[in-house]
Every structure is written in structure tokens, then in C-alpha cells.
């Protein structure tokens, strides 16, 4: 083993263990399970963007035959108004509870105000229509810049901006201010020959997972709760439900269903506690599934943003200073990803003078939820656009400018620490040498380049490896498999154990069958849970070495493990016939009982990922329509445990980024209500919108991981926004700063020129 080894299973394109279930329709997603006697739960939602709830009358609904329970905000516990950390997440349970079910005010179109459980879906619908809610409509605000104006309607009357000294005396919609950076900006800009300043806007984009949220929840008479649901973390669901409903974690068992996409959007919960309240009252299991309209109106897109960037450089292309102010929509309560946005904005560059300031701003929209590399795509889009423009002004090749200023090992990151070994330069070089970069362009075509950076995270993971007496192994881990992680876990376990991939069966365990795991997110699963699986497999190997040592009557240190066999370590250890894993497993009863390797870790040493993307587009000057002609994505992943799924993650991230850059946006009416609540007009890319997406995998191993893994999932959504905008700008000769680049905007830009 070791990060530079030659591997039998790691890095191979194996067939995923859960694959057959998924191509035959057997795999059970959240909406696919049901229970005897199950009721259907539904939610009544606010039709207003901002309103006081004057009264709620549920009496008629309660009397309807077939209705078994009705709940409103006051039926949920009131909780302390404080932000606490739960694993890799932060949560304020008072706010979270209010988001689940509004108390005094509704804060966005779609905010839940009541819920019912009934024997059929039709009766539940009828019951919702019988609930009378009296609202006093209040003025609303949605755009982030509007929300920051002194006269803007206030969402929370007592909100005082955190992070400003001295603290403001007046309430505003600005929840907090954060600041990063170092050096002397004034001196940096004074040393510049060219300074560019621009303002950028991005629209909120939805994660767009195909599977709507869903859950089946049973609260038994003795208070035991069982939850079947799809989420990015069964333990997250358990922690949140326990705190929101004020019961012990041990009383809740969360069984993870297969998850039909999450991308960050399933790191929060919307239905489970409501279903718990309904089920507890009705004494029957309750199933709740969202419609697509509910998903769009009431679940978390990421923030819309407004960003100013100022960048200085000398004539020969040395960047002298970078400054950015970022304003992010948080949604109805604080918590936009402006912090990571501010930390990542300039991260691909070596800057001596840098400052980023971020504002977290509440607006009348659903709470922003994490979306792949939360906060980074927008801030890096803004900076990558200015870098492109700088290259043009200086008459430099855009990759050459990036190379000249590239962050490398030892560079101080804009958020503080020095980088260890990173693959930024390798990505730039691979992009520059890729045939795509020198291919000729036709009329109305443009090429764009952009880089991207994400931290990647570690966190808590538990795994166990059970060795069966027939020489096979079952690997238990606690992270939902969102994109092939079972295959990676099985490959790593097979590699460490030295047995065939097909002899390893990976299982995603429920919350009562394995110890705590942070959720699948931040690109942590293959890194952190992978590390736990490797450690657990190593633990099993150590036990088997010890047993072989006993049989041979030598010290365990004199036994080595290779290719699935215990062997005497060198001639001095003695001359014994190697014992295979199956040999040792067969006699496990006689040698002390079953062999189970375990690991419980808080994985440290997550290492950052970089990527560089190249895209060619063609703009139709008559219609303003953009066609993506060719796409190449280069990324350092540390080690690709399963190259096909690494490529797939990159390609999927690119598609989402292209959608964000070109099509996807929320359209609100004057009443603050969302107008595009379906896939027809929230236009995600379809197969005919995209070309093949070429991927180049760079492997600069992360020394902290047994196989060198960095993490893959976040980086690929970052560069597409900047790359596409740069390509379009280059095609039409006008700098485009306002995403999405919809045809009307492009036509207007062509018409008005620069």
C-alpha cells in the first residue's frame, strides 16, 4: 500500500455493487417504501412572500372524515435561539423549527403553515383546502442589493449586523459581515499598471436533484421513531429530528433510502419532523413526499449574489492586489455561504495584498441550502471574469497569466494558511497542453478558461469490516451512496484485505447499526469514510496477522500481510506456509471468535482541490442563443479510486455549472411569489444542450489519506460559470457580468456594444 503503490482494485473501473438494483428498478428511493396502515401527509404553504399570520382555523379540516391529524406551528417545541455545530454542519434550531412550520410570520412564498395526515392523498388535499389562514400581507424584498438599502422591508425587526465594530444601533437585513485577507491593499494597487473594477450578479440556482424530498415516518406508542428517508446523512436526520422534537437520539432510527441526488440540498430536512408530529398524533405511520412545485418553492436553492471585484496587475502580468465585496442572499434566516465565497474567491492566485468582505443578507426566499462548493462558484466566477479581462488588457494568454500568478505549495492562501502540495499548476499546464486549447475557432465563436478551488473536508466517520467464515467481507459504513461511493469503499477494502472486489459487499448502515457519521457532503465521503474503511480493514488484517502468529507461535510483528495472505516476514520469522484470509476466517470460532475490524475517526488532513476548465461556445447573433461546442475539464483529485465515477462527478458538475451560467434562474412576480416552479421553465440542461464533456484527471496525492484521496465533487461546479461567461464575452466582444446569460441579455449586449 501507500499513496504511490500499484493497486489491484483502487483506480479500476469496477461495476458498482448497487448497480443492478438501480438498472432494474429494484432500488428503493424515499418515495418507494410504504407501511401497512400508512397515512398520507401534506403541507399547506404560504401564498405570500411576507405576511403576519393573524389566525389559523383548522377545525373544519379536523372534522373531515379520513383526516387523522393536523398540526400547526404551535404544536412544535420552541427552542433556544443559538447556532450550534453538529458535526460538519451548523444549525440554529429555533430558526430551523420556524422554517419547518411558521409561527408568527411567513417569510417566503411556500413557507409551511399547517400540515395534515389523512387516509388518502385526495382527502389530505381536501383537508388543506378547508384550513383557513388569515394573513396580514407585509412588504417583501428579494434582491440582495435591495434588501441592504436602509429603507428595505425588514424580515426580522431585531436583527443587528454581527461582525461590525461598533455594533450598529439600527436593525437591518444584514445578518453578518465577515472579512478575510492580509497585506497592504493601497500599496498593492499603487504598484499596479492596470486596475480593473467590475460588479457581477448571479441568480439563485436550485440543486435540481431529480428525486423530490420524501419520508415515511412511524412513531410507535412507546415513542420509538423509525424514519425511512433519503438524505445526505441519516445521522444528520437523527440529530436534527431529536433536537427539533426534543426526544433522545437513541429513540430514533433512521434508515437511509437510496438518494436520488442531493448536491447539498439534502443536508437539511423539511418533512421528517412534520411527519413525526403527524404520526405521533395519529398513531399511524405517515408518508410525505414533495411535489416538484414544493421542491422549487420551498427547498433550498443557493444564494443569488452581487459581487464587486477590484484587481491590479503590473504590465508584465504580476498581480499586485485583489479586493472583493460579496453580498449573498441568505433566504429567510441568516446562513448564506458568503464566508466560503469570500475565502475561495482569490484562492487560485498568489497575492501579497488581498481582502474580501462578505455580507450575509436575509431576504424573502426559502433558506439557502448548500449547493456543491457552497458559495464558491459565484465569487470565483467574478474573479475569473476579471482575470480574463486582465489578460486581454495586458495582451497575455489567459492561462499564461494564471500560471504566472498561480498558487502553489507554500503560497499563503487568501484565507490564511499556507498551501501544502496542491495541483493548481499541474491543472493549468494540462489545460494549456490539451489539443482543445489550440483548436481553431470559427465565426461567432469564443473560448473561455477558468480555474476553481475548493477546500474539501474531513470529519467523523465510523466503519466496520466483518470477515465471513467463507473468506468474504461485509463493509459497513454510514454515508448515503450518492454517486458510486459503495464501489469506492469496496475497492479500498478489497485492496487492504487483499481479496477480490467481488468478495466484498459494502452496506450503508442505518443509525442504529453503526456509529456516528457526518453526512455525505463537502466531498468528504471517499476521503473520510474511505479512511475509516481503510483503517477498519487494516484492523481486521492486524487481527488476522495476530491469529496467524499464534498458529505459528511467532510474534505478530514477524507476520506480514500481502495479497490476502499472512506470511512470515522474512527468513528470520520462520518457514511457514502462508495462510489465506479464507483459511484464517474458517477457523475464527476456534481462534477467539468472529473477526471484525473497526475504525471510528475524525478524519483530519483533507486537502484542497483545484481545476481548470476550457469551453468553446457559439453565439447566434440573431437570437442570442449560446451553443456549447466543446468542453474540457481538468482537475486534481489526489487519487481517483474509481475513475469512471470521478469523471462522472466532474461531468455532472460541469453540466450544473453550465446551467447556472446560461439558463437557470428564479423568476419572481411583483408579489414576491415564484413563477417558475417546474422543470419546464426552470430550465436545467438536457442531453441536447450539451456536448461530450472531456475530462483530464490529475493526481497529486494527499499524503493524509491511505490512497491519496482529496475529494472530487465540489470543484467541478466552480469553473463553468466563469469559463462560459468568458467564452461568451470573447465571442461577442462584450464583457458579460450578469448570470444567467440568457438570449435577451446577450442580444442587448450585442446591440449596445461595450
Amino acid at each position, binding site marked *: 500500500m501507500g499513496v504511490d503503490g500499484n493497486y489491484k482494485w483502487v483506480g479500476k473501473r469496477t461495476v458498482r455493487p448497487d448497480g443492478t438494483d438501480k438498472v432494474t428498478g429494484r432500488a428503493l428511493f424515499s418515495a418507494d417504501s410504504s407501511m401497512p396502515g400508512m397515512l398520507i401527509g401534506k403541507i399547506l404553504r404560504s401564498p405570500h412572500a411576507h405576511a403576519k399570520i393573524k389566525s389559523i382555523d383548522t377545525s373544519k379540516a379536523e372534522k373531515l372524515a379520513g383526516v387523522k391529524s393536523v398540526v400547526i406551528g404551535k404544536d412544535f417545541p420552541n427552542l433556544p435561539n443559538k447556532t450550534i455545530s453538529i458535526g460538519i454542519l451548523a444549525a440554529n434550531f429555533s430558526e430551523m423549527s420556524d422554517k419547518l412550520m411558521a409561527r408568527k410570520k411567513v417569510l417566503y412564498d411556500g413557507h409551511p403553515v399547517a400540515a395534515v395526515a389523512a387516509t388518502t392523498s385526495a382527502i389530505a388535499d381536501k383537508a388543506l383546502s378547508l384550513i383557513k389562514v388569515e394573513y396580514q400581507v407585509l412588504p417583501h424584498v428579494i434582491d440582495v442589493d435591495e434588501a441592504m438599502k436602509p429603507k428595505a422591508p425588514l424580515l426580522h425587526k431585531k436583527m443587528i449586523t454581527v461582525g461590525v465594530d461598533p455594533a450598529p444601533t439600527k436593525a437591518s437585513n444584514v445578518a453578518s459581515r465577515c472579512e478575510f485577507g492580509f497585506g497592504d491593499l493601497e500599496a498593492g494597487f499603487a504598484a499596479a499598471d492596470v486596475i480593473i473594477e467590475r460588479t457581477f450578479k448571479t441568480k439563485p440556482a436550485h440543486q435540481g436533484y431529480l428525486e423530490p424530498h420524501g419520508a415515511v415516518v412511524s412513531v410507535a406508542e412507546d415513542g420509538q421513531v423509525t424514519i425511512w428517508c433519503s438524505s445526505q446523512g441519516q445521522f444528520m436526520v437523527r440529530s436534527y429530528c431529536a433536537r427539533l422534537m426534543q426526544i433522545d437520539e437513541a429513540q430514533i432510527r433512521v434508515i437511509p433510502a437510496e438518494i436520488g441526488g442531493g448536491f447539498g440540498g439534502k443536508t437539511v430536512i423539511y418533512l421528517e419532523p412534520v411527519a413525526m408530529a403527524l404520526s405521533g398524533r395519529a398513531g399511524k405511520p405517515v408518508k410525505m413526499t414533495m411535489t416538484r412545485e414544493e421542491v422549487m418553492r420551498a427547498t433550498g436553492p443557493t444564494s443569488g449574489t452581487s459581487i464587486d471585484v477590484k484587481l491590479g496587475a503590473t504590465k508584465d502580468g504580476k498581480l499586485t492586489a485583489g479586493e472583493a465585496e460579496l453580498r449573498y442572499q441568505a433566504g429567510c434566516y441568516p446562513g448564506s455561504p458568503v464566508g466560503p465565497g469570500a475565502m475561495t474567491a482569490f484562492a487560485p492566485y498568489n497575492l501579497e495584498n488581498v481582502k474580501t468582505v462578505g455580507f450575509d443578507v436575509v431576504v424573502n426566499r426559502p433558506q439557502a441550502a448548500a449547493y456543491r462548493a457552497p458559495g464558491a462558484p459565484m465569487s470565483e466566477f467574478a474573479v475569473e471574469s476579471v482575470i480574463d479581462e486582465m489578460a486581454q488588457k495586458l495582451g497575455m494568454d489567459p492561462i499564461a497569466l494564471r500560471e504566472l500568478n498561480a498558487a502553489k505549495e507554500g503560497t499563503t492562501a487568501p484565507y490564511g494558511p499556507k498551501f501544502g502540495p496542491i495541483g493548481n499548476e499541474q491543472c493549468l499546464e494540462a489545460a494549456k497542453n490539451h489539443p482543445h486549447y489550440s483548436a481553431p475557432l470559427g465565426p461567432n465563436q469564443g473560448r473561455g478558461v477558468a480555474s476553481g478551488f475548493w477546500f474539501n473536508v474531513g470529519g467523523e466517520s465510523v466503519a466496520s469490516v466483518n470477515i465471513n467464515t467463507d473468506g468474504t467481507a461485509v463493509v459497513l459504513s454510514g454515508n448515503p451512496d450518492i454517486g458510486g461511493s459503495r464501489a469506492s469503499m469496496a475497492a479500498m477494502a478489497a485492496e487492504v484485505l487483499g481479496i477480490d472486489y467481488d468478495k466484498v459487499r459494502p452496506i450503508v448502515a442505518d443509525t442504529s447499526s453503526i456509529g456516528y457519521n457526518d453526512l455525505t457532503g463537502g466531498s468528504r465521503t471517499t476521503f473520510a469514510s474511505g479512511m475509516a474503511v481503510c483503517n477498519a480493514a487494516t484492523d481486521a488484517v492486524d487481527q488476522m496477522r495476530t491469529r496467524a502468529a499464534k498458529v505459528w507461535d511467532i510474534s505478530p510483528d514477524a507476520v506480514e500481510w500481502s495479497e490476502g495472505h499472512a506470511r512470515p516476514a522474512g527468513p528470520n520469522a520462520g518457514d511457514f506456509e502462508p495462510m489465506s484470509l479464507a483459511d484464517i476466517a474458517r477457523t475464527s470460532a476456534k481462534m477467539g471468535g468472529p473477526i471484525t475490524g473497526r475504525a471510528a475517526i475524525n478524519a483530519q488532513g483533507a486537502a484542497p482541490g483545484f481545476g481548470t476548465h476550457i469551453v468553446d461556445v457559439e453565439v447566434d447573433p440573431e437570437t442570442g442563443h449560446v451553443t456549447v461546442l466543446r468542453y474540457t475539464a481538468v482537475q486534481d483529485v489526489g487519487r481517483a479510486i474509481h475513475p469512471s465515477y470521478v469523471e462522472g462527478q466532474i461531468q455532472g458538475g460541469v453540466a450544473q455549472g453550465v446551467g447556472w451560467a446560461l439558463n437557470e434562474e428564479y423568476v419572481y412576480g411583483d408579489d414576491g411569489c415564484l413563477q417558475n416552479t417546474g*422543470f419546464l421553465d426552470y430550465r436545467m440542461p438536457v442531453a441536447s444542450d450539451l456536448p*461530450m464533456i472531456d475530462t483530464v484527471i490529475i493526481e497529486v496525492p494527499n499524503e493524509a489519506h491511505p490512497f491519496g484521496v482529496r475529494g472530487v465533487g465540489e470543484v467541478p461546479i466552480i469553473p463553468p460559470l466563469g469559463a462560459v461567461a468568458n467564452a461568451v464575452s470573447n465571442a461577442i466582444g462584450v464583457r458579460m457580468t450578469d448570470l444567467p446569460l440568457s438570449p435577451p441579455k446577450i442580444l442587448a449586449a450585442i446591440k449596445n456594444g461595450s
Partner: protein
Amino acid sequence: MSKHHVTSTVNGEPVEFLCEPQETLLDILRDQLDLTGSKEGCSSGDCGACSVTIDGRLVCACLVLGAEAEGRKIETIENMAEGDTLHPLQQKFLEEAALQCGFCTPGFLVAAKSLLDRNDNPTETEVRYWLAGNLCRCTGYDKIVKSVMDVAAEMRGE
């Protein structure tokens, strides 16, 4: 409100069910016949996760009423493999990692099979446009399109 009595053939088996006038074929398949392989991503005909064939024609089951199944032959993802042998498309999707979360996969497979049933030599553009009614948020379509092209070539004996 009285229920309709419907007789049809699903995956080769005769079935009978009672359905409300407003219930869709997707509701019937999933909730009454326990065929949950067809997924509901939107219930408005925009995502293709519910793709099935009716008398050989590719449709979104969420846009068809249960009552319309009367006398028709319905095929779903559950009947795509023959016995213990996966359909070549299913096999290729597995080998090429043409799925990540797998939620869109049944719909893509049903739609792709329906394409290959009528066109054994589609161009990449034809594949992309035929599958444009199926949304996938995970894969960027690259490996899906490649798999379909590869299977077409294999089935032609290339």
C-alpha cells in the same frame, strides 16, 4: 365518485385494477401494482423519470390516466431484463457508470430502448434529442449518450 375498473397487460401479465378518474398511470403502477421502478420526478411530463411504453409507444406515465390503460400493453423498467439476463443497455450502463444516483436511470433505459427499437443506428445528435425529455442532474449525460451509442453499435454487430 365511482372508480373505474380497468383491465390491461403490464409487463406481459394480465392485471385488473380500480382507479379514480384523476389517478395517473404512474400512481397506479407505483401505488397499486407495487411497480416502483418508474419514478416521479415532476408529475408534469418534464423529467422522463416515469417513462414507460404503452403498446410500444414511449410515454410519460405521469401524463397518462390510469383509465387509459384499458386494453393496452404496458411495459416498465421491471420487465426490461430477460430472466436473469440484463438487457444490453442495462449492462452497458453498469459497465460505463452511466448512472450516479440512479433515480433517472429507469426512465433513461426505457427511453433508450425505445429509441433502439426503432433506430438501430442513431447519430449522437439523434440520441441527444431523443433523450432530451429525460432529465439527469448527476452525470452531464456524457456516459449515458456514449452507452446508448455503444449498445447500438454492438447490437448491429459492430
